[in-house]
């Protein structure tokens, strides 16, 4: 089986993640969509690594997972902090840094 279906699936997942980031207004869902995009990237990494027979792609996927863990921890801590002071996680209402 060739790897291009994997690449196509990776594109589809990334696209769904992009739509989620741009359209949803709940900050938690936006963070989850970012996780989805990172996973789509991981799938492409692993598919190309498999096609080339090289495990360097696996190492990069490993780094991406570590990065996603750090991002989720800090991002969710920021969300909890914002919710504590503003009582909302709706991105349309969080406009303090505008202007």
């Amino acid at each position, binding site marked *: 089986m060739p790897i291009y279906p994997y690449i196509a699936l990776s*594109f589809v997942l990334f696209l769904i993640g992009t739509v989620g980031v741009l*359209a949803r207004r709940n900050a*938690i869902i936006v963070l989850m969509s970012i996780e989805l995009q990172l*996973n789509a990237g*991981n799938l492409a990494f692993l598919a190309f690594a498999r096609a080339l027979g090289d495990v360097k792609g696996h190492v990069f*996927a490993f*780094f991406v997972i570590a990065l996603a863990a750090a991002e989720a921890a800090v991002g969710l801590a920021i969300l*909890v902090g914002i919710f504590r002071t503003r009582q909302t*996680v709706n991105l*349309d209402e969080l406009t303090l840094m505008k202007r």
Partner: protein
Amino acid sequence: MTINAEVVLFAVLALGAVVGALLTISRPNPVTAVMSLVGTFFALAGLYATLDAHFLTVLQILVYAGAIMVLFIFVVMILNREEVSLVSWKGFFIRALGAIAVGYVVVMSVQVVLYSRDTAVLHASTSNPPAGYGTVATVGASLFRDFVFPFEAISLLLMVAIVGGLILSRSHHQTEMAEERARHVDEIRHKAGPAVKLLPGGGRVVEGEDGDAEDASEDEHGHTAHAGH
């Protein structure tokens, strides 16, 4: 493409991943969204297994479907609020930017899937992996032989994330309590004068009764203590 077990497995897992992803971005209830995302991650772990990435399959389940999603569940439980507007497209700029981004990804994916799927790399067969491919041994060897410094950088990043998460999630109430405690200790110290030494736990040692304490603080206020006797 002939229909065999590999193709069927890919189709089932890919369908599961896409359906889970669509549910994730379309459900108004965040708990449902998190559960759909867990399903997507399990389907992706299965796809990693079909790509002979055994180590990454286990990591995907342990770290993503386990640790990160538990974190998301916790935060959803804390911040569970009814969502007023599911989506909103305020502002021309955001709308245009979104349309351009989505259009770009669609064009690129169509280009790859339809026009360049016969390139050598994309058409490489996944039937015969090299010996030991994707196991902990080979991935670990590559990690510690070729990518030692990026690995250390990632560990530093995780360290920073731990400290940052702790500081950000520290509540205002806790900070006030700590300040109050510090003020209280200062007050006691001020009232008691230099002859009384405070222990970290809040207990007090009066100099003169404890020989060691007197020796240790001889330089600072030993004279005052003796003058009092």
